[in-house]
């Protein structure tokens, strides 16, 4: 350290940790709510972990929604998109399970009674996760387990 700087900084000093801002989609409630919505749009309100990962990631941002929207509409091919396995989805599943909102059997996740109540409450507020809801509803018919597997294997959709 230069001598001058050392002269100036001769007193004791300390650092205080400041809370950090966090992207809204990395908050626990938001992730769990999105998870409930994905399950809610799935057959028997049940989905494989694979499908959960794909749809949660697809629904998360404006650009991913548009990309996956085109994929399910057929204007993009499975090889044009990258499906990532994101750890936040696993953590959201863990939290949802811990809170008794969803249950796990094997590799699939299912809404519990409490989960259905919570889903009803989220759906009752149209503006709450509005874009995400609209996206999930629009791809619901195409986003089947079979198609999810095909996307993962880079095969054409049904």
């Amino acid at each position: 350290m230069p001598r001058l700087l050392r002269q100036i900084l001769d007193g004791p000093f300390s650092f205080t940790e400041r809370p950090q801002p966090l992207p809204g989609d990395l908050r626990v409630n938001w992730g769990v709510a999105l998870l409930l919505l994905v399950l809610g749009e799935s057959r028997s309100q049940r989905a494989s972990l694979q499908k959960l990962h794909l749809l949660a990631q697809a629904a998360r941002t404006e650009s991913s929604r548009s990309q996956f929207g085109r994929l399910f509409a057929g204007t993009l091919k499975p090889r044009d998109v990258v499906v990532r396995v994101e750890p936040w989805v696993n953590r959201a599943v863990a939290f949802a399970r811990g809170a008794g909102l969803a249950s796990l059997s094997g590799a699939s996740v299912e809404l519990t009674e409490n989960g259905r109540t919570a889903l009803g409450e989220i759906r009752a507020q149209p503006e709450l996760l509005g874009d995400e809801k609209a996206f999930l509803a629009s791809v619901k018919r195409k986003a089947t387990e079979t198609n999810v597997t095909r996307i993962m294997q880079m095969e054409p959709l049904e």
Partner: protein
Amino acid sequence: MTLRLRHIRLRAQTSGGLFGADIPLKSKLCIFWADNTKGKSTSLQAVIYALGLERMLSARREIPLPYAMTSHLEDPVTGERREITQSWVAVELENGAGEVVTAQRNVVATTDRKLISVFMGPALSAPGSYAQRDFFALDPGAATREAGFHRFLADFAGWTLPEVKRYDGGNAKLYLETIFPLFYVEQKLGWSAIPAPIPTFFQIRDVTRRSVEFLLGLDTHKIELERQQLELDAARLKASWAAKLDEMRRLAGTVFARVEAAPHEPTVSAEHIRNAHLTVRRGESEWVPLAGFIGELREHLETLAEAVEQPMQGAADDVAAEIGELTEQIGQLNSRRSQLFRDKEAARGQQDAIVRRLEAINEDLQKNLDNEKLAGLGSAIVRERAADHCPTCDQPISDTLLAQGVVDKVLPIPDNISYLRAQRTMFQRSLDQATSALSIIDDDLSIAAQQVADLSSRLRGLKADLISPIGSPSAAAIAERITLEERVRNLHEAQSQFEQELEELANLSAEYARILASQAELPSSRFSAEDRTKLSTFEASIRRQLAAYNFSTFPPAELGVSPESYRPEKEGFEIGFELSASDAIRLKWAYQLGLLETGLGHATNHPGFVVFDEPRQQETAEVSFQHLLEHAAYLGTKGLQVVLATSESLDHLRGLIAGLDCEFLVFEGPIIKPLQG
């Protein structure tokens, strides 16, 4: 603002003949005596029903009349039950202009009960043939539409009902049902509240306040509305001002000029507006006022005209030198243009980056708002688990889907939202800056292009001059002249349009001055001076009466009327349960007659009549009741009407009213009796 009850009539056609009652009333204290359960309240409720006001009693649209008008009557002689086949009630009213009308409404009938027939004359007290018009009550629009009875009644009484705010944000006219309870105290609920049990189901904000303000003719609501209107006007004017400035800038842009010294905000100073002017670039970086510049160009044009007329002299060397100079200048200008192009690309890149950042911030903000809602939902998702505790082991964790420990302290959601909003504001500002930087570069580019074109045109002229025969006019001068003339025309046009815009700005400024003056004229407090006098008259009347009625809970001098709610208060606290039951009734008498009395010396909207059904509630002490009668009789001598219905013991009552100026109506037995013929 005057209304008097002149006559009440009830009629019921039964299997045993016609029954009915007639109650003639005068414009003074009218005491109306009958024994309990003999139809006193029925007769008074008939007024409410005849005037289509039953919703002041309850939101249900049921007939506020007992079986004696709706189902059956008992023959007073034989005691036989007589079924009612048809019945109606009517009330004769007089207004301040001395006009009399009679409103009649069917109770048991085959016709629509919402119909009220109005006879344009004293059809009850002086039967005759009067013009008849039918109105409707209760339906939406009864208060506002031409055929609505309440609109007719308000017009007849001379009331201009104010616009008031509803809970749903819309506006509505104050309903008559919310005003009548202030002077019409019916027996069941009327005595239960001060100022009055005013219906709230009309969804009018602060309905009690609005009704009292209207009845006392206070300016405060009007002042408030005016204040809001003026704020709205000012905001609108600001928007027009900004739009006008935009227009001026666009105009300036068409001739590569700038608007200088234009006031950004509305101003009342004409000088400020006159100072605004257009400037144009002269040379590399000097900006000069447009008006002067046009003059300079004109002078230059004149010298050019001379040059054109003078035939070319053989100064080929000079011409060649100028050609060299011009070529050099054009070269410099072109290199400046390519620099500007590069700047523009950089500025556009920066603008795009900011736009992308703003989009990301907006998306994240939306997610944070969702999080706030989720937390506020009280929903199952939150009930089952708090965001900062592990649902399984209940240990504190940070509210994140990142691995625990990556972020030690997470910003709480509301702070996160403010943080994003602050960022958004900052980036919005940078975007504005980037946009304006781009537009400056665009301007500079256009100017440079124009200059290159001008210089090239002169260059071509000069080259032509070099090879043209001696003695012919200079082509360079002609070309420059044409270009210049075009430029001067355009600039001149812009200058005169700009002056027109300035004039319009001056008009806006005059409008702004009017708004500011009106705002300054509004009283600084909620109440006008006249309002304060009225309220203190009202308070004084209540205190005087309370003293006379032997109000004893606390000294009457300590009582006031809340300027907020117009409820009685003591030292700033509303009076509630601490009153004894009989003192509460005394206060009610004093309040209602106080409203009436305030109208004596001030312009209020009080109709000048009060109806008290059984004022002797809670066995208020006899001495109090006597004073009530005295005060009511006094108000009667001033031309006001007080109708009291009572079943006080008759002999006793006679004693109380001895010497009072009043109309005493005694009904022995049931009021509704079989009628002859």
